């Protein structure tokens, strides 16, 4: 490509988003080289900041005209490299599309631009509820919110949540993002704008396009607007935290609570080392000598919660819980969950480099699986720690490594791959909520049979025949393969995060 066409592209983009809406200087682009998964890095050719759907559409048309790949990005809090641009792709960033267009309490739907932050939306809804109740004292409404609560929810966007079908702590009872998205607006690679929401209250007829776009990681269309379901915000809680001498017992308790027919809002396990990390950071008063901590929360009608609480505590006791405490004080509860949500970040206090795996396994296999994962780590000479959404069987083994030690990086990546393979083998999946991005792309053919992969590819081609949207992510691409190599020495590539070629396992 010649210099002249490069300039023409950037000039065209500048014409759409204005000079302040386009970053092109290589120094400034450095900050867009990765997301929360800092292993995968690529420098975009430019980053554009559209403010409206129409600007997104115009940018897409221009980029397609110039044959340049497009990568959508929100806040860049993802953990799979899904919003990183490779191979001269251009990033369309939604950080200036933060408008909450409407909040309809009666119909319980809020319409937000893709770049609106998850928590900002819920705060705006709370303000709207307060305003409504001031003017309608005779018919007050209860608190409402947008339920999906990924740990990144203070920073992540509703568009990003929908595109990755983000999970969170409350998903056990209240569902993942796709359960709370009523419709989406997105831009196709030819610049056409699609809206899946047609009526105020009802699901739209026809195939579930909304469902298809949720979790498509920017490979089918660029989300520009989300119709968010508003649900009553639980007002009554009981929060139990129990301490175990064995992680196995904590996992067994989780399985038994579900087996007993109770559906808590969340069930979270942290292993001993994670307890110490969190305790050091936030001083909540967790016992630092415990092997595992299980947090269980139930919500619902106040009068029935105490009975449920008793049953849960009895199950924990029967599984050998060393210490059982419960609280209903809202302030302490907020502190407790804030400590949990900031657990990953707190690791930075101990290690400069870590990465968090994300896989799902059948809940009933949790006790053995956690032991097996730790054993795999030991076989590779690594310490693996766990903090996970146990209720969903969603494990997050955390691998610590020294970025400057190529051998250790290599061992880490091999161990991570074996953990994922193990999860697949016992009937699990390679991701619970972080998505595939580039990080797990190579595992897709292990997860799905050839006919399924082929169907994914055909679907992608229907929306994006020239493979311009987030090519090389989520669905194995015929045009671009991004390998996560880390050179062991300057001349010898090695240490792939997931080796690029795996024979499909049977």
């Amino acid at each position: 490509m010649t210099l002249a066409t490069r300039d023409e592209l950037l000039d065209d983009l500048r014409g759409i988003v204005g000079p302040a809406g386009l970053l092109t200087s290589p120094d400034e682009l450095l900050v867009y080289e990765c997301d929360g998964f800092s292993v995968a890095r690529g420098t975009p050719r430019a980053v554009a900041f559209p403010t409206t759907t129409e600007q997104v559409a115009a940018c897409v048309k221009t980029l397609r005209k110039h044959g340049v790949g497009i990568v959508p990005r929100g806040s860049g809090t993802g953990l799979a490299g899904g919003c990183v641009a490779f191979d001269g792709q251009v990033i369309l960033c939604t950080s200036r599309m933060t408008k909450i267009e409407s909040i309809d309490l009666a119909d319980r739907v809020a319409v937000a631009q893709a770049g609106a932050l998850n928590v900002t939306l819920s705060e705006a809804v709370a303000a709207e509820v307060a305003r409504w109740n001031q003017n309608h004292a005779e018919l007050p409404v209860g608190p409402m919110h947008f339920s999906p609560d990924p740990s990144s929810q203070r920073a992540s966007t509703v568009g990003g949540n929908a595109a990755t079908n983000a999970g969170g702590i409350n998903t056990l009872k209240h569902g993942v993002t796709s359960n709370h998205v009523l419709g989406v607006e997105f831009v196709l690679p030819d610049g056409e704008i699609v809206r899946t929401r047609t009526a105020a209250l009802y699901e739209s007829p026809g195939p579930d396009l909304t469902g298809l776009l949720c979790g498509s990681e920017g490979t089918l269309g660029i989300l520009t607007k989300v119709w968010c379901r508003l649900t009553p915000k639980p007002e009554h809680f009981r929060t139990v935290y129990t301490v175990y001498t064995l992680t196995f017992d904590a996992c067994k308790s989780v399985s038994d609570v579900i087996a007993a027919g109770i559906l808590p809002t969340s069930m979270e396990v942290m292993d001993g080392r994670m307890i110490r990390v969190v305790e050091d950071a936030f001083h909540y008063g967790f016992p630092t000598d415990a092997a595992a901590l299980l947090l269980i929360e139930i919500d619902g009608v106040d009068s029935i919660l105490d009975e449920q609480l008793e049953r849960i505590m009895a199950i924990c006791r029967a599984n050998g819980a060393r210490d059982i405490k419960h609280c209903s004080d809202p302030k302490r509860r907020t502190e407790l969950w804030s400590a949990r949500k900031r657990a990953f970040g707190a690791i930075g206090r101990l290690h400069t480099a870590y990465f968090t795996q994300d896989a799902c396994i059948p809940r009933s296999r949790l006790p053995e699986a956690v032991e097996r994962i730790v054993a795999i780590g030991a076989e590779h000479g690594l310490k693996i720690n766990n903090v996970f959404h146990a209720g969903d069987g969603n494990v997050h083994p955390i691998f610590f490594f020294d970025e400057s030690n190529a051998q250790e990086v290599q061992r880490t990546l091999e161990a991570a791959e074996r953990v994922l393979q193990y999860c697949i083998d016992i009937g699990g999946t390679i991701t619970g909520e972080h998505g595939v991005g580039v990080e797990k792309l190579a595992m897709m053919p292990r997860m799905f049979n050839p006919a399924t992969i082929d169907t994914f590819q055909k679907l992608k081609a229907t929306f994006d025949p020239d493979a311009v949207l987030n090519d090389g992510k989520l669905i194995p691409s015929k045009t671009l393969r991004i390998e996560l190599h880390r050179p062991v020495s300057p001349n010898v590539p090695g240490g792939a995060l997931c080796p690029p070629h795996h024979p499909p396992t049977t």
Partner: protein
Amino acid sequence: MTLESTESSNPAGPRVISGVPPIDPGAAARATLKLDPDTFQRATDCVHCGLCLPACPTYTQNGLESDSPRGRIHLMKGLAEGRIGPSEAVLGHLDLCLDCRACETACPSGVVYHELIEATREHFIAMRPTTLTDKLLRWVFFHLFPHPTRLKVALLPARVLQKLGLWGLATHRRVLGVLPAQFQKMAQMLPPDGPLWERRLASPVKPTTATRRVGLFTGCIGSVLYQEINRQTVAILERLGCEVVIPTGQACCGAIHHHGGDSHEAKALARKNLEAFLDLGGEKPLDWIVTNIAGCGAMLREYDDLLRDDPALTAKAKALSEKMRDISEVLVELGKPTDLKPVPMTVTYHDACHLRHAQQVADPPRQILSWIPGMRVVPLAESEICCGAAGTYNLSQPAMARDLAERKLRNIAATGARVCVMGNVGCAMQIDSEARRMGMPLRVVHPVTLLHAAMFGGED
């Protein structure tokens, strides 16, 4: 079809590129930023999670990752590793940082961001060209503001004009327009009235029944423009049974110098204050040292960091840091005063960054307001987002400072309160002057003033 069979049917196959850039062994040699290892560690503590983004005033204003804490850390790391150079664009993003430290409150990894940005700024400040206005500004920051007497002399003409009723005319855009923008802004920030010559506060007569000895740090700009708050602080503390000591040897806290890249002078001032507050001759040591100015309090609390290279003074600095309190913390510790009179008023509370983020003081001022009978406190949206004052930031980055002030005022207006409470001189001047500029009726007041009214009357 598997990935492999895709390739076999397409002999060209997909283009393969590396998603992990090779390490450039020569980069380090090109690094333009040299940081001491402790400070560099601050950058590597960042795990790039992004939880700081929504806390950052500039990122939430313009949506640029390069104007976010995570992005700035990435830039500083890039400079220190030699991956990028100190281009105007890069330095511009670093300059736009308010150093408000909201990111430190948000950061789960405990990154001490301010040390990193302050060390980086100090490093680059020396090698940048300066204009005449820059030099004048630096003279004002370093040689006028920190000296109460000089500041009073400088303000005398303005105060005379105010007394004569001519200040409005003098600050008219067409008159002031001849001055550089930063100086116009300074003139706007001057509170519209005050004494011609503010008197220095002396230590009050020693009460016989005092249970605590409290040192009062009066501040330089604070003691010239907001001395009344210091007087009220003394009256409240005395009523609550404290002996208040106001050492005459106290100097500017050094924050202006430290944040302006002159840590040498900041250290000299720190030494003066250590002496003034800790070497009391034969007198009983102080229980607490208090200030009602968040910016100064934050600096004084961090003397142990500032003087960490001076082993002779580290212990002393630590002792001072440990005694240092914001006035609101001391008042909460002393407990709710009895016989408070109602102050019927609707107010909202703004968190000064140097109180909320640098000192992690959030509840005590709110608690004090909740004591006052008849007072209604309406929560302020984005109360923890900087108002744009940020020390001398409103003079060096007027555009962003103004945008942030307007955002703050919009949030204040939405509360319906006509009174905004805050515990810092810098915020008070910024919010007060911007409200006047926008013609918004707003009274800016320190929590001490309201508590004083509830204890002694005078707000009817």
